[in-house]
């Protein structure tokens, strides 16, 4: 029966193609074809080399096949946790006792001259740290009481104290962090990694995205997009509540065999199309159909956290069946165990301007911290006891930091204590994946306003992530619009100071 179906579908498709194929096409193809042929052989001598050097790793017939990196990497997979909205480093990671002394004073003009802020206007007041800091672990890393659990694993963490960006709005800043460009159109780091290494598990996508906090990040899905890379490398967004992937169940009235038969038929048609047009995107599409079918079985299994033992749920603070950051973190561990290369977590709701209690650095931020502190700590410890921490790079990221001044939107006093977007200096940290725990890199001035040493840009972080996976960030390239592009574009230096 399925053969008959195939035949019919095939005929239909052929018919559709023929309908579009007019005399004009024929003439155009003919002329262009000969012309291009001639041009090709003419220019071949000139550009032969350039096309050879821009070799691609993309194998259209099996785009997600596991591939070796440039050199043996310490990390095999990445869990990148991005706190969308940008939490205040001054209440979490950046201990600035001098700032407390300035609390409530007018911000000196010298800090404001020539500076642009998202909301601050006129002369804001300085805002002292709204958290208690302590030195933790053997390394003596300063962490605030807002993250009491994380403090217990301080010696696993490498703190980057002097991260900086040139974007002060969420969407472009997030794009810069994840795609290396503040504008749309570049592939995200997860897409680059999947392009470079493929996936160890042919039944699961190589790059999975999980979001929590009630919203997607401001930059939207482009922040895990594939840009000019083949679309098979874009992040697959999964949900921790309901169906993990939308429409993953068979439609009612259609059984699994029928589903398989129809996918096979569609793929056959696509194969025909490919042999005619040679568009690699068609092959991508075929493999995606196949992957989707395989995912129907494998994804519900890996995305199901109910079969995890009770002590794991207690450790992570997970509640099966709900959308929560904790659930996503546990899923991230499960995915990495299953061979997924890159798990990207976004948690929304860290934009603490002080416009409401939920956005106050002494109220909402504290509540937000309580929701992520336990799961992140549990993740580090759980990876460790499973012998996976050394090969899993865990990253705490954010798009920028927050000002040492209290926000005064429209020049008015805000109802709660909050801070504006601050691009000049903020913190991020990494753990596992060949990172040297208990280190810190870079320093900022006494109030955390500017960088003093160890300047770290998005490109440096990206270069470091690729390095840990075994890639030279200058050599992982893809040709688009006539030139080779790379994630770090024209910049980027591996932060060797934090490597084990």
């Amino acid at each position, binding site marked *: 029966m399925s053969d008959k179906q195939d035949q019919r579908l095939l005929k239909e498709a052929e018919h559709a193609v023929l309908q579009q194929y007019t005399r004009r096409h024929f003439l155009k193809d003919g002329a262009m074809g000969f012309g291009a042929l001639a041009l090709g052989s003419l220019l071949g001598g000139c550009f032969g080399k350039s096309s050879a050097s821009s070799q691609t790793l993309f194998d259209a017939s099996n785009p997600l096949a596991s591939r070796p*990196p440039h050199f*043996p990497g310490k990390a095999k997979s990445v869990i990148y946790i991005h706190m969308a909205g940008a939490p205040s480093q001054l209440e979490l990671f950046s201990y600035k006792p001098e700032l407390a002394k300035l609390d409530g004073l007018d911000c000196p003009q010298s800090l404001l001259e020539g500076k642009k802020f998202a909301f601050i206007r006129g002369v804001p007041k300085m805002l002292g740290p709204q958290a208690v800091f302590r030195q933790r672990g053997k390394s003596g890393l300063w962490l605030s009481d807002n993250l009491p659990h994380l403090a217990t694993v301080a010696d696993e963490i490498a703190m980057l104290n002097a991260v900086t960006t040139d974007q002060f709005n969420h969407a472009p800043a997030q794009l810069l962090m994840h795609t290396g460009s503040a504008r749309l159109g570049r592939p995200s780091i997860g897409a680059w990694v999947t392009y470079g290494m493929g996936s*160890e598990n042919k039944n699961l996508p190589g790059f999975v995205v999980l979001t929590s906090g009630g919203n997607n990040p401001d930059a939207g899905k482009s922040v895990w997009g594939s840009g000019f890379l083949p679309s098979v490398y874009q992040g697959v967004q999964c949900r921790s509540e309901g169906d993990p992937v939308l429409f993953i169940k068979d439609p009612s009235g259609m059984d699994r065999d029928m589903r398989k038969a129809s996918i096979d038929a569609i793929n056959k048609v696509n194969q025909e199309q490919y042999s005619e047009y040679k568009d690699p995107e068609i092959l991508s599409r075929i493999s995606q159909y196949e992957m989707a079918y395989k995912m129907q079985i494998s994804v519900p299994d890996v995305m199901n956290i109910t079969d995890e033992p009770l002590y794991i749920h207690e450790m992570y603070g997970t509640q099966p069946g709900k959308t929560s950051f904790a659930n996503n973190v546990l899923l991230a561990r499960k995915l990495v165990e299953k061979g997924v290369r890159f798990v990207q977590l976004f948690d929304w709701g860290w934009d603490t301007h002080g416009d409401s*209690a939920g956005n106050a650095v002494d109220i909402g931020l504290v509540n937000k911290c309580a929701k992520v*502190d336990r799961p992140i700590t549990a993740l580090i410890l759980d990876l*460790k006891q499973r012998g996976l921490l*050394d090969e899993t790079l865990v990253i705490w990221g954010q798009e920028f930091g927050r000002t040492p001044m209290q926000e005064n939107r429209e020049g008015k006093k805000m109802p709660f204590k909050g801070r504006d977007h601050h691009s000049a200096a903020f913190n991020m940290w990494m753990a596992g994946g060949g990172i040297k725990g208990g280190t810190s890199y870079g320093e900022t001035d006494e109030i955390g306003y500017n960088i003093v040493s160890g300047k770290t840009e998005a490109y440096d972080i990206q270069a470091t992530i690729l390095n840990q996976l075994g890639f030279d960030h200058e050599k992982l390239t893809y040709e688009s619009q006539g030139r080779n592009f790379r994630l770090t574009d024209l910049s980027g230096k591996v932060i060797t100071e934090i490597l084990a």
Partner: protein
Amino acid sequence: MVILSIDITGFIGRFHPVLVHLPVGILLLAGIFIWLAKNERFESLRSAISISLFLGMLSAIASCVTGFLLSKTDSYEQTLLFKHQWFAIATAIISLLIYYLHLKNRETKWVAALMVLFVMITGHLGGSITHGSDFLTKAFSSSDAGSVNKPIPNVQEAVAYSAIIKPMLEAKCIACHGPNKQKGKLRLDEPTFISKGGEDGAVVIAGKAAESGMIKRILLPKENKDHMPPIEKPQLSKQDLELLQWWITTGAGYDQKVKYLPQTDQIKAILKSLASGKTDEMAAISFFPEQTVGKTPEAAVQQIRDRGVAIVPISQNSNYLSANFVAIESFTGKDLQLLEAVKKQLIWLKLGNIAVTDADLSTIGKLTNLRMLYLQKTKITDQGLVQISNLRELQYLNLGGTNVTAKGVEQLKGLKNLRQLYLFQTAIERDDLDKLRKLFSNTIIDTGGYEVPKLVSDTMVLKAPVNK
């Protein structure tokens, strides 16, 4: 108009290393021709003597001139330079003389022999200047090569400078900043010279590592032309740099013993590694071998890949393989037998969550190059473990979530390279752990069971104060 200021003499001088090879070759050849032409069989060579002597003479003079100019641009060891210079001039004069004699049809064979001797002496002296006077003899004293990593048994009792710093400088700096050559007018072979510094001033400022010229230059990016050692020369290791900074910070003294100098934890650890003769890098785990291995037949790899195993080289230029069975369908012991075809290359093997049994471990026991082996959540038991006790290269072993006990694990005590052993959720009794830790003194044993304690703050939700 742009006026280019070129150090023209220095520029010409730099041709010396190229030119010197000409008189060496041509004059030697001329000497050989002169002697051979005495023999009837080589009579025809006679006609070539004149031209080779002429060219040799010209190149000898050119070499002398460029050499003289070069000697003015940089600092070289004076006695060697003096000898080289005068032997070179003598050689040039002899070549002139012999050319004259040859034109006059006089007997030249004894002068030719003298010339060959002088060419060789001059060449050797020149070589000693550039490569160091011990260059030739180094091959005989190979035991010296490893002197940097020679263990310092009682490191705390040793003198910091002579035991740690001096060997480091000798290995990495002295070739250009020593008795033979003094680039930048700097010598680092004796305390007095180190304190004196070079043409850019002091290189070591006691107590201030960050301000010391030496450290500043070492820390420059490698591409920077002021970076030391130059990019093409052997670099200082991270550990060398830490030690050097520590020595300068603690006063850059030349006769203090290590134990009297303040030490951070990091320095203590490095010093400890010096005592054992293992550098930091050597003590760290390397999950891949230094030596290379032949390529596997692609068919064997493809056969494994077809079973759904992700098997790939560990990197693009390596033939070593890693295999991950995570996506295999309907696993049987036969799948593991396929790996025997790649046993030389296979160094990482992931079998977590696969129904591997004790019987399968006998197959794994044949994969003797394995460095990392993941057997967590498999069906293996104590009985099977003995079959992998011969995997001598093994550095990482994960037995988490299996039914192994301390008895079973003890059978692996012969694995001297084992660095990490994961035993989370096994049947090992808490009381047996200490015994295991003693048996595996070089291994980090992780039994997991970490907890994240419950805190009041975990569930406390802050709200806005009511009076707001």
